[in-house]
């Protein structure tokens, strides 16, 4: 057993400890001890360790997602306030997802659910089918392109 089985987790926990308390030597030592013990506890659970192949693409993904969330917030606010239920068509759609890495899939589900207008409903891991619900399903192909080209490709580059 290595001293630090999850260095990134330990570092994040230490950073979180210090932001919640204060940036001082005392809290650095206390936080480091707690973070190390917590990462041992994590190691005891033996989760699959995600591999970040191109971690430098993560800020790009974050930027894209934050921008898309702003855009879809505006779109959904428009739908709710104008109440145009006649012309709008919401519906279910299925997408074939090629991602296999569980961490990448988890990230994709966070992206899709935190974007107003899209909701991740069901995922079948054996054939990679994803069932989602879209509030404004004007062009199904557009949504497929959004998920496949905008998010999935980048996630694949980062994780696989």
């Amino acid at each position, binding site marked *: 057993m290595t001293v630090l089985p999850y260095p990134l987790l330990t570092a994040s926990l230490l950073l*979180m400890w210090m*932001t*919640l308390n204060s940036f001082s030597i005392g809290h650095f030592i206390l936080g480091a001890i707690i973070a190390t013990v917590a990462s041992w506890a994590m190691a005891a659970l033996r989760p699959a360790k995600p591999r970040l192949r191109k971690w430098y693409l993560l800020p790009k993904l974050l930027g894209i997602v934050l921008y898309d*969330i*702003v855009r879809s*917030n505006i779109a*959904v*606010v428009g*739908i*709710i*306030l104008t*109440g145009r*239920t006649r012309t709008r068509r*919401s519906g*279910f759609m*299925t997408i074939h997802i090629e991602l296999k890495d569980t961490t990448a899939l988890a990230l994709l*589900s*966070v992206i899709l*659910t*935190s*974007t*107003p*207008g*899209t*909701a*991740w*409903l*069901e*995922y*079948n891991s*054996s054939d990679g*089918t994803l*069932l989602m*619900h879209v*509030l404004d399903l004007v062009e199904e192909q557009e949504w497929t392109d959004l998920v496949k080209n905008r998010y999935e490709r980048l996630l694949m580059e980062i994780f696989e």
Partner: protein
Amino acid sequence: MNEAFNLPFWAEIVVSAFVLLGASLALIGTIGLARLPTFFERLHAPTLGTSWGTGAMVMASMIFFTVTSGRPVFHEILIGIFVTVTTPVTLMLLAQSTLHRERAEGNPDVPASISKTPAADSDPKEA
């Protein structure tokens, strides 16, 4: 509340703008929750509050306390991170239980199960 008086004018404007934005998004989300006709459409409305509704409030709080205390305060960002990361859990639970119920009732508007487990084969539509 003496801290509030030390706030410069520009910060007052920025903080109130973010608070108003966050509050409006949460309000519009709840209006949507009340007004949208079907369950799956209503599922989208509260995400306004959990995405930029929370985001704007967190920004306002970070700016306010950074300006008034004179040192960078950013631990609020953890609220944003944890709200975002945990939203899918509740949303999927709600969605999947509703999908299950609608399928069991044989509602034709709901798509058939995409998983090939034996339980899914007992879909009343196919019977």
